[in-house]
């Protein structure tokens, strides 16, 4: 079975990204294909590499990266949502004249087409969202 997950909520403030991570791991451990994880709305903050947690707390962006080291994983952050929320890769930082950037390695900025295409190719699409 081919899965696509959609994450709408910011980590720390909402539990949804943590639930999505556990679901993603369960999908992969069961031998299914995880075609893509698409981050939209405040969910783009899952790809912010500057998230820094005290040693005894979870770090959601690092956890997605760790999962992507164990399994091939396509972590796509909606570019329009990301730019408005201040999650930039080196290219977009140049375009918007910023001298810093913060998209976590292993994540990629791309358009909403990547969500629709993933849904077209997947057997199951599951959204993890929060209030707001």
């Amino acid at each position, binding site marked *: 079975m081919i899965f696509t997950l959609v994450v709408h909520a910011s980590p720390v403030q909402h*539990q949804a990204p943590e*639930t999505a991570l556990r679901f993603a791991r*369960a999908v992969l451990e*069961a031998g299914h294909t995880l075609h893509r994880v698409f981050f939209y709305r405040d969910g783009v903050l899952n790809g912010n590499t500057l998230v820094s947690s005290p040693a005894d707390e979870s770090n959601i962006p690092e956890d997605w990266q760790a999962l992507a080291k164990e399994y091939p994983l396509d972590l796509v952050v909606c570019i329009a949502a990301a730019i408005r929320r201040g999650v930039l890769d080196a290219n977009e930082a140049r375009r918007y004249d910023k001298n810093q950037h913060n998209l976590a390695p292993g994540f990629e900025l791309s358009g909403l087409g990547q969500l629709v295409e993933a849904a077209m190719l997947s057997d199951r699409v*599951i959204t*993890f*969202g929060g209030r707001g």
Partner: protein
Amino acid sequence: MSRSLHTLNTPPSDTDTLSHCLMALSEGDELLLIEDAVYFTLPAHRHKLPSGVPIHALAVDLQARGLTNATDISIISDPEFVNLTLHCNRVVSWF
């Protein structure tokens, strides 16, 4: 038969989201309580969920919140959550 799995993550106080979820539930669908929705397993709220539909709740979310009295609900693990999505034709999330 086309069957949907509905996931709900809002607490019982969010009557608006609950009403949308219930309005969309077809006979034969399944309902999974996750995150704050596991509070529907409290005796005071259990009757607000339909009786004709299989109801599941995520074990880790019940445990986190100190809820242990979900007698007539199937308590499931993350791998079982994945399996539920396989047995339905689509997933509809309510949040």
